[in-house]
């Protein structure tokens, strides 16, 4: 018995909204990265759910590529957070209010 696609969509919406809430609320840049990861994985859930819905594997393969792009994004993000910490001795995103003095 297959689970209907609407439940996957509801799960995906919940994960996405948790990511949005994390980005709106948190001040730690590392938690920002985790929240962006949550939102990307919500999109992955949708891709896999509709892949099963249509009986076509394109969505599953595409979600693999999305994961690879998420890994690249995290690599650059961690590098930026390292520079942020060197310049401000903190990873609080609200402290980095100016780009240059």
């Amino acid at each position: 018995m297959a689970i209907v696609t609407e439940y996957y969509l509801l799960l995906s919406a919940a994960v996405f909204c948790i990511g949005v809430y994390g980005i709106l609320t948190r001040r730690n840049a590392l938690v920002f990265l985790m929240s962006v990861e949550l939102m990307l994985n919500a999109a992955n859930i949708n891709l896999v759910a509709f892949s099963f819905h249509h009986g076509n594997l394109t969505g599953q393969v595409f979600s693999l590529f999305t994961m690879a792009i998420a890994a690249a994004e995290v690599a650059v993000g961690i590098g930026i957070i390292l520079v942020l910490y060197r310049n401000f001795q903190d990873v609080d995103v609200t402290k980095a209010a100016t780009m240059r003095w």
Partner: protein
Amino acid sequence: MTSRPRLATDVNVINGLAAVALFVVMGYVFVTASLPAPSGFPDGSITASIGYAMFGLVDQAAIESEGFLVAFEIIDVLLVAALVGGVMLARRESDGSVVTALTDGGRRLRGNGDSTEADADETSTDGGEH
């Protein structure tokens, strides 16, 4: 000394309401959408079919999909570029000095007591206050 994690009580309620409202809107759309029953996959190895799809050999796959060979190669280049970019941002010279993207913030860097931080301050800032 360690401290246990505590529940954050100074959160912004408006942000939480915005996120919940977004969930309600999306949930309403999803529940009221009239989707047909999922068709599911035909018999055959899903894993093998994903592998064939990634390398563009869709005619050998048991389950229908598109070919992704070009996307696979582009992702390869993207991952290498991200790796090099991350290393370039995080790199230090062999003597411990920071070489990229360091500003003085309008004041001398707060070194943590060791001389390498002071050296980094001397060599890497843009000289705005010197």
